[in-house]
């Protein structure tokens, strides 16, 4: 266990060059034929009490990053520095299962699909109380009281605790998942596409609930999503991933108005805007081609084959992290020099 002294404003969690490489084997003898770099050197920090959004398209490694933080998978490199309540910093990546146990109570996860993430053979009481029983936090009558309190907190009626998941709608199931995640008073909750499977009207309810719970319980969220409008709504800061690498981090207000990486620009530009009057007035930046294969990434900057600013340098050299004049970080040779368009530029001609 590595411990470091407390810094001045220490983050709750710091990923340092996190790597998750999966071996690829092929042929009858399962020869090792390469690696898929699902997460390739991700470094980011999460401050206590904030919501960090992790956004990207499918296969970019955002879920793998979330799972590595929970140590649901063992990262192949890098550090996951977690600051305990007493100020000690531990590297979760180096701990074994027994040493991890106390931290599993403090970092919890909510999954995307409320239909497959709840055991259909367990009642709500059993589902929500399982973490309490496993960790011997409560026993007997106490358990039911705790579960009732948790259910009330997420907006469900405690009378329903003896029902099975099939009796609940998608939104209610997601509330049950959230209650389970909160059962052990976590400090960090990883929300992996937690609202993506929900209908519009229910999604708004759950987003409001998450915000209320954060205020009440001083929670820190890592909010993984592909939906930029939800990310913009709920997150304080945003980190964008592309093919296993982080390409940009910035405060939410900045990243949407002045994206500094061309991929962020294209992502923002691709989001359909719910206003038909904007349809013909918006200039959309269209990406050509497809997301690179993480097993065979392009040379240099992974994004260069699809980038509208790409030069020869981009295909030859791996870009460094650069900070722009307004404090955003981007993994781009030309960060801060290129004229990337934000949400307001795209809409400017549509002002009415």
């Amino acid at each position: 266990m590595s411990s470091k002294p407390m810094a001045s404003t220490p983050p709750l969690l710091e990923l340092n060059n996190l790597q998750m490489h999966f071996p690829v084997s092929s042929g009858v003898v399962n020869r090792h034929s390469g690696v898929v770099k699902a997460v390739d050197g991700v470094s980011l920090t999460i401050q206590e009490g904030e919501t960090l959004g992790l956004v990207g398209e499918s296969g970019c490694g955002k879920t793998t990053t979330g799972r590595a933080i929970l140590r649901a998978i063992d990262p192949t490199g890098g550090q996951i520095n977690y600051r305990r309540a007493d100020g000690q910093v531990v590297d979760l990546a180096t701990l074994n299962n027994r040493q991890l146990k106390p931290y599993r109570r403090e970092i919890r996860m909510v999954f995307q699909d409320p239909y497959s993430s709840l055991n259909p053979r367990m009642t709500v009481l059993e589902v929500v109380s399982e973490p309490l029983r496993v960790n011997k936090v409560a026993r007997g009558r106490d358990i039911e009281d705790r579960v009732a309190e948790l259910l009330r907190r997420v907006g469900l009626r405690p009378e329903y605790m003896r029902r099975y998941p099939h009796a609940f709608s998608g939104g209610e199931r997601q509330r049950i998942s959230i209650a389970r995640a909160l059962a052990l008073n976590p400090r960090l909750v990883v929300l992996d596409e937690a609202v993506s499977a929900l209908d519009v009207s229910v999604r708004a309810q759950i987003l409001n609930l998450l915000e209320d719970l954060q205020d009440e319980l001083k929670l820190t969220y890592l909010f993984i999503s592909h939906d930029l409008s939800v990310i913009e709504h709920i997150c304080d800061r945003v980190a964008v991933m592309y093919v296993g690498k982080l390409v940009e981090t910035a405060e939410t207000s900045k990243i949407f108005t002045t994206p500094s990486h061309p991929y962020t620009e294209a992502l923002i530009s691709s989001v359909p805007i719910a206003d038909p009057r904007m349809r013909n007035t918006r200039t959309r930046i269209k990406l050509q081609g497809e997301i690179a294969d993480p097993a065979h990434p392009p040379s240099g900057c992974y994004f260069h084959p699809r980038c509208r600013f790409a030069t020869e340098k981009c295909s030859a050299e791996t870009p460094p992290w650069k900070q722009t004049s307004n404090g955003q970080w981007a993994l781009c040779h030309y960060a801060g020099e290129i004229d990337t368009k934000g949400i307001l530029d795209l809409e400017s001609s549509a002002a009415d």
Partner: protein
Amino acid sequence: MVMDDKTLLEVKGLKTHFPLDEGLVKAIDGVDFSVQRGKTLCIVGESGCGKSMTARSILQIVQPPGRIVEGEILFRRPGTNGQPGTVVDIAKMDPKGKAIREIRGQEISMIFQEPMTSLSPVHTIGDQIGEVVRIHNNASKEEAKARTIDVLERVGIPKAADRFDTYPFQLSGGMRQRSMIAMALANTPSLLIADEPTTALDVTTQAQILDLMRGLQQELDMAMMFITHDLGVVAEIADEVVVMYLGLVVERGTVDEIFHDPKHPYTRALLRSIPRLGRATKARLDSIKGMVPSPFDRPRGCPFHTRCESFMPGKCDEILPLPTTLSERRDVRCLLYGEGDGAVGRTESSKVLENVG
């Protein structure tokens, strides 16, 4: 059967019910709309509102025991030499009969949501698209292949001739959805039904596919019925919008009317509950209270009254409103605007009231 020239499809008072052991599920319980030639109609609503079932009813591919119990689906078949074609009622056709099979895949075709499960995993892309061409056109294998490669090129699949022999698992999600579109367009249908075609795709791929569909629609002068729950997509692509709730069309109008002058409390609430990019962040979202009721337990009267902020006790929970026509091709089903005039051509109001009471 009166239908003007511009109208390609007209659905009147459609009801599709599922008699199940647990009770009667009224998946569609009063749907009226029309699709105009060359235009895009979006059907929007939450899961379980009957939007996919409407599409399936139009193609007569409702799974048993579900069946169309009432209503008309009038479709104008393509004419020859500039003459308007004949109008047929699909609702009356036998789901396994010859008549509907001539229309399916030829004059009306459909794209499904999940490109991985709707393509056969054991046949090549070329085989699957070629089959559609051969069945409807009596074409030889060579002709079918040439047509297939042509249509694959048209949907923007690079090196189409090489992709002819690939299997779906060798393609990315975007390419699979392009293949699905190619299959749907192989026989140049006059109506394309797309059931959540971009929901399983990433945003950048979604933008590509929407562009492609818009382009192809203009090129082929084809009407589209586009089913989605994503209001952003609706705003991008629709000419007209139909909003559904629990098997009923609650509001209908042009895309601009729906987004800028919504009438039904449900439409208004839906539009308020979506976070919008570039708008003030961190403000609380307006959510609709409660959830969509179970189909076995439909509320009496207006099905939305349990969640409605304009609920009028004694009225909304008693009377099922009929569509009130506000202007041409614009109607709303809400007691705030009257009990309905039934002008869209359906069973007279007394009969519906009887059913409710």
